[in-house]
C-alpha cells in the first residue's frame, strides 16, 4: 500500500488533482454566473486575484491566515455584487458581445491596477497548514496537510453551491431568474437582486481558488489567473456550463490531463491537456458531460 501511494502514477494523480481543484473552483464560479445571469465573465480570474490580494495585504500586516481567507471571501462577495450592479446591469438585454467586451476590459483594468498597487512580483502566503509532503515508510507521498485541506475545501464549497442551487428557495429563484427572467418577475421574484447575489456567490468561490493559488509554493501574481481562467473555462464547458458537479469534475480531469502530459511528455505541452479534453468532449458529447439535455418545446 505504501508503495502504491508513492508510485509515479499516484504522484501524478495527487499533483494533478491538487491543480485540478483550483480549475474546478474557477469553473464552478463561472457556472454560477452562467446559471444565474447567462454571462460569461472573462474578468472572473482577475476579480478573484484582486480580492485575494486585498486579503493578503492584511496577512502582511499580521492578520491570521484563516481570518484573511474569510476576509478575502467577503471582499469577493462585495466585489462581485459591485461589478454586477455597476458594470453588468446596464448590459442586460443588449447583445452578448457587449458583456464580453466589458468583462475583458475589466480584466485588463484589474490587472493593471493590481500591478500598480502591489507590483507584478509573485506573492506568496505562508499557510498555517504544512505544505511539506507526507512520507510513508520513507517513501514520498505527494500529499501535504495543505493539499488535503485544499481538497476538503473544494468539496465543501462544491456541495454548498450544488445544494444551494438544488434545494433552497434562494437557489430556485436564482435558477428561475436566469432561465426565464420575465416569468420570474411575474411570479414576484426580485430578479435584479438574484442577479447580484449570483455574481456575489461566484466571485466568492473564485476568490477561494485564487487564495489557494497564493498559498501554494508558486504564489500568485497579477496576471496569474489568466491561464487558470482558461482552464476553468474549458472545465466549465466540458462539464456542460450548467452543472456545478460537471464543472468540478471537468476541472479535476484537466488537472490530471495536464499533469500526465507534463510528466510523460513535456512540461511545455501541459496546457494542451485541457484543449485536448475540450476537443474530445465537444466531438463526443457537445452538450457537455453533465448536462441533462432538456429539449425545449414551445
Amino acid at each position, binding site marked *: 500500500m505504501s508503495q502504491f501511494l508513492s508510485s509515479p502514477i499516484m504522484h501524478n494523480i495527487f499533483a494533478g488533482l491538487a491543480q485540478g481543484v483550483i480549475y474546478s473552483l474557477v469553473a464552478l464560479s463561472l457556472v454560477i454566473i452562467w446559471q444565474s445571469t447567462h454571462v460569461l465573465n472573462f474578468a472572473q480570474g482577475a476579480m478573484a486575484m484582486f480580492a485575494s490580494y486585498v486579503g493578503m495585504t492584511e496577512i502582511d500586516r499580521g492578520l491570521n491566515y484563516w481570518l484573511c481567507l474569510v476576509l478575502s471571501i467577503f471582499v469577493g462577495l462585495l466585489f462581485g455584487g459591485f461589478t454586477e450592479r455597476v458594470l453588468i446591469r446596464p448590459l442586460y438585454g443588449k447583445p452578448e458581445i457587449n458583456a464580453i467586451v466589458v468583462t475583458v476590459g475589466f480584466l485588463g483594468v484589474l490587472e493593471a491596477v493590481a500591478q500598480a498597487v502591489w507590483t507584478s512580483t509573485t506573492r506568496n502566503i505562508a499557510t498555517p497548514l504544512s505544505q511539506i509532503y507526507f512520507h510513508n515508510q520513507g517513501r514520498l507521498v505527494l500529499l501535504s496537510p495543505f493539499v488535503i485541506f485544499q481538497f476538503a475545501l473544494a468539496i465543501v464549497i462544491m456541495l454548498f453551491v450544488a445544494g444551494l442551487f438544488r434545494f433552497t428557495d434562494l437557489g430556485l429563484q436564482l435558477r428561475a431568474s436566469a432561465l426565464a427572467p*420575465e416569468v420570474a418577475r411575474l411570479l*414576484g421574484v426580485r430578479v435584479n437582486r438574484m442577479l447580484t447575489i449570483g455574481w456575489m456567490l461566484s466571485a466568492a468561490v473564485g476568490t477561494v481558488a485564487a487564495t489557494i493559488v497564493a498559498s501554494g509554493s508558486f504564489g500568485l501574481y497579477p496576471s496569474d489567473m489568466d491561464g487558470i481562467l482558461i482552464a476553468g473555462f474549458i472545465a466549465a464547458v466540458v462539464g456542460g456550463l450548467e452543472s456545478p458537479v460537471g464543472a468540478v469534475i471537468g476541472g479535476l480531469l484537466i488537472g490530471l490531463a495536464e499533469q500526465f502530459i507534463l510528466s510523460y511528455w513535456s512540461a511545455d505541452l501541459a496546457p494542451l491537456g485541457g484543449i485536448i479534453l475540450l476537443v474530445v468532449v465537444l466531438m463526443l458529447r457537445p452538450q457537455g458531460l453533465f448536462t441533462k439535455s432538456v429539449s425545449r418545446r414551445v
Partner: protein
Amino acid sequence: MIRVEHLTVNYGAINALSDVSFEANPGRVTAVLGANGAGKSTLLRAISGLVAPKSGDIFLGERSILSMATENIARLGVAHVPEGRGVIHELTIEENLRLGAFASEVDVRAGLERQYELFPVLGDRRKKYCSTLSGGERQMLAMARALISDPKVLLLDEPSLGLAPQVTSELMNLILELCHANDLTVVLVEQNAKSALRISHDAVVLHLGTVVASGDADTIANDKNLRHYYLGLVQ
C-alpha cells in the same frame, strides 16, 4: 379590482393601445376580446408593469400601480399567466409551483397540497420536469402556479391557445369556478371569443388598440355587428 384609465401604450412609433379604459371586478370574469394585434396582450403586460404606458393610469383597488416594478405588482396579488403559459421547462413541476409561492406569505407546503388536490395530475408527477407535460397539463400548471400565491387578481393571456376544444371547455369551467370560489378578479384575454364569452360576466372588445365595445358579456355576445366584425363568430 383592476381599473384601467385612458391607457395609451406605444411601441416606438407603433400605437399599441390608445385611450383604453375598463374595469374588472372581484368574483367576475372580464373577457378581453379582439383579433390578433388588437392590443390584448399589451393591455395585460401594461397592468403587470412589463411595458411602460405613455399615458393613463392603472389602479389595483384604490392604489395606482402604474410605473411599479413587475415583481412588486405580483407581490400585491396580481397573478399573470403569460401567453405561452410561462412554465419553466428546465424546472420540475414542484419547483415551478414553489416559485409561484414566493410572491406571497402563504405557507408553501400547504399551498402545494392545495394545488395538488385541485390538479391531481400535477401531484402525481411533482418531481418530473415540465418538458414531459402536455399542453393542457402545462396550462394547469401555469394556473396552479398563479393560484398558489392566493392572488386577488388573475390575468390570463390566451389560456386556450393550442388546446383541444374539450380541454378548453374544461379549462373555462375551471376558471369560472375558481373565480367564484376565491372571489377573484379574472381578466381573460382570448382570441377564442366563443369559449371566453360563455363564462364571462363582462367583456371588452379591442380593435387596433382601441375599445370598440364594453359591457355585459351576454349583450356583447348577442350583438350581431360585433360578432361579425370583431369576434369572428358566425351565426
